[in-house]
């Protein structure tokens, strides 16, 4: 079965024997985008979080057939070293990662949160950022999420005022 979609702005078409193949496997093993991580494989830890049509999803539990014609964004498409996304910039400033394995999932979840709630409270963060970090970097992540909200507002002041 052939499945076509857009990923990080590029049109891609992949051939899969099983249309229920997890999107994560396609992203990592076929498209060679290794930033998105396999953690639990049960949609529990959030290491595999990426965006489909702007919504955070657990790609280990998302059949590739559902991605047909949709816009996928992975951590590689969020930003880059020259032009980091506010979330990536905040993560750098707050030196969040320890081992780093789970961080792409957290950053994708945070980027989705800031699209919905530009200035999240601690309660908003507690409700929406439920990924698992075995290094327990939660405290630094909380600071980084607030910092990312500031950076995003600074970068898009008009948009943020319109949204508020």
């Amino acid at each position: 079965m052939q499945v076509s979609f857009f990923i990080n702005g590029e049109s891609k078409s992949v051939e899969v024997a099983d249309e229920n193949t997890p999107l994560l496997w396609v992203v990592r093993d076929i498209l060679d985008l290794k930033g998105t991580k396999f953690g639990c494989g049960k949609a529990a830890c959030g290491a595999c979080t990426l965006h489909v049509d702007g919504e955070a999803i657990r790609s280990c539990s998302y059949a590739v057939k559902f991605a047909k014609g949709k816009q996928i964004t992975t951590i590689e498409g969020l930003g880059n070293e020259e032009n980091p996304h506010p979330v990536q910039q905040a993560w750098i400033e707050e030196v969040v990662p320890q081992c780093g394995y789970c961080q792409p999932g957290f950053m994708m979840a945070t980027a989705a949160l800031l699209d919905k709630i530009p200035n999240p409270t601690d309660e908003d963060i507690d409700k929406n950022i439920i990924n698992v970090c075995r290094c327990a970097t939660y405290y630094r992540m909380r600071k980084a999420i607030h910092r990312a909200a500031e950076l995003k507002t600074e970068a898009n002041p008009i948009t943020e005022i319109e949204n508020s």
Partner: protein
Amino acid sequence: MKKTHSYFVVSFLVVGMLFATTPYFSKNEYTTIDKVVLDSIQAKDAFNTMMKVISHDRCVNCHPSDNRPKQGDQGNQHHFDIARGGANTGFEATKCTTCHQSENNVYSGVPGAANWSLAPKTMAWQGLTNKEIAKAMLDRTKNGNRSHKDLIHHLTEDKLVLWAFNPGVNQDGVQRTKPTVSEEEYKAAVKEWFEKGAIIPEDK
């Protein structure tokens, strides 16, 4: 002597035939079951069959009495502190559909069906008796203003409701338990119960 013996035999046969042809109860001793009563008996059977499904964990887990979805056969709290949110579909960025898609996922064991969500809080069933659940279900102020026709449609055709009969495997790859009544029996029972007036049986 011989004549007397014949007389007794004939008398015995006559009496015996009379007993054999006369019913033990006369016709007016039978009780005719009124159609209304019969319908209520059949409706009660249909009700009990229907409620075996509706009160099953597969259904009640998404009709919690608090704001936390339940999971498993013991109605455990949903993992990850997931809660109802403003629209019964989770929070702003972490929603039901962050993990649950429109089908069961055979790789992860995450269940899925179209419109995966909690039932509205007005339709909280957890902890209620069958009678209380049925009352709530029929109450248009609680059931989303659904008529009987709407309820039949919801109960027998909604993909999320019918997911109970196709709950897939859990995270360990083990088949989730299904209601003890088959999908066909359940649908027939729902239709029969409504056809017979949606009577909620009285407790005895």
